[in-house]
């Protein structure tokens, strides 16, 4: 097995005359966590489905775990665990039965499955819920069960489509902690998300998608350095248009998103001086993060 887990080469997919993925190429190395970032409709889920061989590309080549997909997707999927965007657990069954039934789909014997269930329940912190029906679980527990289910075949690669969407912060942090544990054990993860914090915390590398095109790729740190570089001041509480003309001479770049002004400047003090004495304004200075990169690249009312 090479050290490339996923390789997409010039992959294109359209539904009708709408292009969803447009000549996309990317490579995910074994053992890394790779993020697909993008606004809704950027093609993230379609890419995840193509990696699994559940959607056929119109053009381009896909190789997953060393085999061509979709031609030999079945072989690839033996080494993949999937956490979908929407839970599709079996509601008629208990937690334990869900794992048992799913293990059988991989051709595992009942005995082999029963041998791994305790460790999966422990991993997902669901030991006390083993015999509860899925319908009784909270949203966070369902996600953790879905994650445990994805691990039943001891996969090398995990494909996750918005793994923490819809979860409260506690549940989300617990999932992140579990995913870091898996990464430490050498698993490869490809995840789609529109939570910048999630991408920044988990991903070794990521790419930003828009209209099915890869518009930036790199480590979160490198992307922030490359596209933002300076500290950020968020200004809210005033008229964004008026304020931006006032401070424009003192900043590298200004972006307006809704009623918030994002100023990118190496010299925050100058901006503060300009705005001194204005009532009702709130200023927040912070280091740049991935959200700034995202806003800049996917362009919201961008101004230069």
């Amino acid at each position, binding site marked *: 097995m090479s050290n490339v887990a996923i390789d997409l080469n010039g992959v294109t997919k359209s*539904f009708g005359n709408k292009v969803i993925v447009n000549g996309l190429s990317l490579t995910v190395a074994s053992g890394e966590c790779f993020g697909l970032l993008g606004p809704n409709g950027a093609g993230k889920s379609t890419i995840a489905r193509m990696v*699994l*061989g*559940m*959607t*056929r590309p119109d053009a381009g080549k896909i190789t997953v775990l060393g085999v061509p997909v*979709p*031609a030999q*997707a*079945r*072989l690839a*999927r*033996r080494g*993949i*665990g*999937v956490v*979908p965007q*929407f839970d*599709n*657990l*079996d*509601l*008629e*069954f208990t937690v334990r*039965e869900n794992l048992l*039934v*799913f293990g*059988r*789909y*991989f*051709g595992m014997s009942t005995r082999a499955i029963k041998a791994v269930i305790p460790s999966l329940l422990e991993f997902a912190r669901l030991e006390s819920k083993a015999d509860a029906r899925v319908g009784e679980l909270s949203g966070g527990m369902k996600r953790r069960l879905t994650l445990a289910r*994805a691990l039943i*075949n001891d996969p090398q690669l995990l494909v996750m489509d918005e793994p923490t969407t819809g979860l409260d912060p506690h549940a989300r942090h617990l999932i992140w902690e579990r995913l870091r544990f898996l990464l430490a054990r050498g698993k490869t993860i490809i995840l789609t998300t529109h939570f910048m914090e999630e991408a920044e915390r988990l991903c070794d590398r990521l790419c930003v998608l828009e209209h099915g095109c890869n518009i930036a790729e790199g480590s979160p740190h490198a992307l922030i350095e490359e596209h933002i570089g300076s500290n950020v001041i968020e200004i809210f509480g005033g008229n964004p248009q008026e304020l931006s003309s006032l401070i424009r001479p003192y900043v590298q770049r200004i972006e307006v998103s809704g009623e918030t002004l994002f100023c990118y400047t190496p010299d925050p003090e100058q901006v503060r001086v300009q705005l001194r004495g204005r009532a009702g304004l709130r200023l927040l200075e912070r280091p740049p993060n991935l959200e700034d990169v995202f806003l800049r690249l996917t362009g919201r009312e961008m101004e230069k």
Partner: protein
Amino acid sequence: MSEGYAAALPANAWNWVAVWRRNYLSWKKIALASMLGNLADPMIYLFGLGTGLGMMVGRVEDASYVAFLAAGMVATSAMTASTFETIYAAYPRMHHQRIWEAILYTQLTLGDIVLGELAWAATKAFLAGTAIAIVAAVVGYAAWPSLLYVLPAVALTGFAFASLAMVVTALAPSYHYFVFYQSLVLTPMLFLSGAVFPVTQLSGPFQQAAHFLPLAHSIDLIRPEMLDRPAGGIALHISALCLYAVLPFFLSMVLLRRRLMR
């Protein structure tokens, strides 16, 4: 056929068993209620029509009306059980509950799933048909040894109707469309296939049409056995049912692939 279609076909001869076992585990929890539900309808027909109409009708094809009807009800119960399992249970597993989608994350193919669902629906048809046949034997409308021949025919009938219903499942945008299949296909078939009265009572064109109906072939296999008569055209009836099991299966695969794996 395209390479993609080939990849979606059953991967091997045993993968479908995992899907069958999933459905079995689910059914075990409600087995009694499910059995009663499957049996009540044909039993009521059998004894309701059989005794009520039977008194007026007298003998049909040289048998008591109830005995004549019993074979029709065995075949019909298999038809209904496997159809309902496919449209009212497999459809939500595919559509609302997204269970098929989860299975497609594993090493199973779409063909494995469909085959597992068909085998499960045929199993339920087998249970329903067997129960009626046993009741018929107990009350003396069928000879016990005949069941040896009747039961495989019931299973094959279940497969054929599951396969047909799978096409309907693949096409249906929602539950509401199933009523068309029930009232425009299954109910007329019940009356055209000789389940409740002999096909010879029909006018010429309808008699001709009956030759093409899977339920008619099923009844022609089952009734002579249960009434202990010489059967004719067994090979033809079995072949026809096999065609009805196999061709819709491949058609449903084309349709389901288009629906689920775009």
